């Protein structure tokens, strides 16, 4: 490399024209081409998944999916209304538990006592929890709820999901509260607000879009989680009864994916399409809220 350049210099006539076939330029072009190819390849799975969902799940979409119950082995038709209700119910429980928990802890971490020992420890624990494999949330809920209550239930599923949501809600809410401009916080204190008044009247209203973004993302993630529900909510072919095993879209997909019956496999694809639509819509909502905040 550099042969050309040296010759040019010796003649005291630097050549400044583009030389696409010079080794170092060629290397640059080849590497760029490889990078572009890799970026395109990385996009293939997403499009492949989406196309398959629309192709195989889309043709099964009908109203019956939403009010019907899962079919038995050799039945045709059927739906998974109970799984949709179950997913919404358990994600609802998880949100009710984790959102107040996460936001209240975040208020303490971000504003009331950010540098205290307990805040440092709590922040560390939240980071550890956010890396917790989702199946272990299920194992915990099994040990703490299923074994204690004596049966699989929607409550156990909701609690397992809430453990996955708490750290996300907490860490994003802390960020959102910290993003509220310092001068505004000072103004509130300078007017003679107590810390609680500053938080409730001034800081939280400004931080709400950021907090909602985090909550919606956590909900989206929880809605798609399967592992924590496998042996906490289990599955059911009947409508929701919170004290008993409860169906969910995610577990339905898992169960039916391994079945030898085409009808069930079609249902698994249809359920996947609905689940992915739900998750994408939630993602878009959270982005829209996040963007409005930035303007």
């Amino acid at each position, binding site marked *: 490399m550099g042969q050309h350049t040296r010759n040019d210099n010796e003649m005291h006539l630097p050549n400044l024209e583009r030389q696409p076939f010079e080794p170092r330029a060629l290397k640059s072009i080849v590497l760029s081409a490889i990078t572009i190819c890799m970026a395109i390849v990385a996009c293939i799975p997403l499009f492949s998944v989406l196309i398959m969902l629309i192709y195989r799940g889309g043709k099964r979409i009908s109203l019956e999916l939403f009010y019907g119950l899962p079919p038995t082995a050799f039945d045709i038709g059927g739906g998974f209304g109970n799984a949709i209700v179950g997913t919404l119910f358990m994600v609802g429980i998880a949100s009710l538990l984790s959102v107040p928990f996460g936001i209240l802890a975040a208020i303490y971490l971000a504003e009331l006592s*950010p*540098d205290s020992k307990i805040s440092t420890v709590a922040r560390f624990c939240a980071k550890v929890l956010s890396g917790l494999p989702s199946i272990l949330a299920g194992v915990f809920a099994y040990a703490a709820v299923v074994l204690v209550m004596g049966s699989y239930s929607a409550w156990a599923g909701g609690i397992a999901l809430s453990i996955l949501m708490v750290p996300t809600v907490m860490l994003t809410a802390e960020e959102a509260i910290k993003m509220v*401009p310092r*001068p*505004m916080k*000072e*103004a*509130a*204190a*300078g*007017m*003679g*607000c*107590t810390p609680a*008044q500053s938080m409730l*009247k*001034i800081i939280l*209203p*400004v931080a709400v879009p950021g907090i909602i973004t985090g909550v919606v993302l956590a909900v989206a993630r929880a809605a798609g989680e399967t592992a924590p529900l496998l042996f906490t909510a289990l599955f059911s072919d009947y409508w929701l009864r919170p004290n008993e095993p409860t169906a969910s879209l995610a577990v339905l997909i898992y169960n039916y994916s391994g079945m030898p019956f085409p009808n069930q496999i079609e249902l698994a694809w249809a359920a996947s399409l609905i689940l992915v639509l739900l998750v994408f819509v939630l993602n878009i909502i959270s982005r829209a809220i996040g963007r409005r905040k930035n303007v």
Partner: protein
Amino acid sequence: MDTTVTPVANDAALDSTEIALDCQADQIFYSDFLAVRDSHVPIARNQITGFIGPSGCGKSTVLKSINRMNDLIPGFRFEGKVHFHGVDIYDKKVDPVAVRRNIGMVFQQPNPFSMSIYENVAFGLRLNRYKGNMDEKVEKALVGAALWNEVKDKLKNNGLSLSGGQQQRLCIARAIATEPRILLMDEPCSALDPIATRQIEELMVQLKEHFTVAIVTHNMQQAMRVADQTAFFAVDISRGGRTGYLVEMGATKELFEDPQEQLTKEYLHGEFS
């Protein structure tokens, strides 16, 4: 320079006036860092007291200690006394929140709340559970802050929709709506253009009829234009750290025309900043 003698205010100038608040900052720390020492600043009633000095001299720190804003900074420690209506506001029994309700503050950056102009001004009144005629008080405060004519038709608009100078006057209106006895201003014009600055300065002169004002400014001309009393602070680097202290204080005219300390002379002649 003799650092052991506490510079004392020019008593002759202050004798004729009543002291609204007497700030004796012996030592102010941020954790282990000694930020200010030996600064005794009396604030005269219905006058404007200007704090001037080079950057890092602790003038803002002293000002913010007066209404205990610095309590929000972790590691802050104040040694000394701030006498205010017979109470030392650093007494353990005093609630800093109550102090801030009586001593208003206007900040360097205009910082209206993200709510309507009306609600911004009414905020302090509601906070203090004011029972009288709210509209009247809001109007009075906006008139007092020389903003009424510009906003009377759009009181419902968000306070953040105003221009920088208007925002700062809104913050002044917000601060004076509760009729605090002392109004602290921390470089209130540093983020504003010359025209807005001039408006705020004229406003300050009007405000002293009803209020006692203490203002930190980086701008000596501004101090000359508005302040009745001026306190000059400097930085002492002799002990390794950067510790601010009060060099001298007196009636503005006397301080600028006939400073007692060599350091003040040098500063006023622009030999350092």
